[in-house]
């Protein structure tokens, strides 16, 4: 089994209202050294051994469902590779 974590965030050019609010809150804590916060979410996908082309499968799921490319972008990392 292979577990892949797909991260989805707003594109840098898109205003992230949650990120802006959290940045303000961090500044209230006194941490002015934090310039900005980007909020996103991740999806952990567990692939079974039937997967033949992992990268292609991830790209297909991301582009057709998990990501709205009008405003979002994604990257991923393999957490647990098949043995």
């Amino acid at each position, binding site marked *: 089994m292979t577990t892949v974590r797909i991260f989805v965030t707003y594109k840098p050019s898109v205003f992230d*209202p949650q990120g802006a609010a959290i940045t303000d809150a961090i500044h209230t804590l006194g941490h002015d050294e934090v310039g900005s916060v980007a909020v996103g979410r991740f999806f952990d996908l567990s692939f079974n051994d039937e997967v033949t082309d992992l990268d292609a499968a991830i790209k297909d799921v991301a582009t057709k*469902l998990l990501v709205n490319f*009008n*405003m979002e972008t994604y990257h991923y990392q393999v957490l647990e590779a098949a043995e």
Partner: protein
Amino acid sequence: MKIAVIVFPGSNCDVDLYEAFHSVLGADVEYVSHREHSLAGFDAVMLPGGFSYGDYLRCGAIARFANIIPAVRQMAEDGKFVFGTCNGFQILTEMGLLPGALKQNDSMQFVCKTVDLTVVNDQTAFTSRYQKGQTIQLPIAHGDGSYYADLQTIQQLEDHHQVVFRYAGENPNGSLHDIAGICNRQGNVLGMMPHPERAVEVLLGGTDGLPLFQSLLDQQTVRTEAE
């Protein structure tokens, strides 16, 4: 003109849309479940507001996979009329029938109030009973209604007169170019965040939504060869 109102799990403005056509306008309208595969015999389809599939993933993202969606897409391609309000607008963008996306309001607040809108394009099948430049009042009720598209897409919308409604005065959600509603290039698909179906009787607080549905009923029905 026979009209379908699609009912998704989590739709909550389907009755408002149905009654606007049925009770107020006496039009031929039917509910159609998201489970159905066909819209044969219908001339227009309405995608209602609400929270289809619990707004999981993104608003409208899961509804795009419902059984009925290919039939909705076919109606758009056939030149029949497709209308989405609020969650219906979000579904239309997720389906790719309209460009861009609806993102979380800049304020992060759910905004529920009546707003002023400017009718920007009175040449569509949905707005012929309005006048260009007219200010109307319609309710909005959404948390994810901030229209976003890249600058090139926005420019194309403006160049082709696809911006149909704009917020007048205060922009309630951060929409680019104050966009409240857009149509496709052909003009037979309209999506908007405000709720015209909630403004069709004086008792409801206003009737500025009525001309939208009356405009639609004025249209000639489109028949495909298969029919």
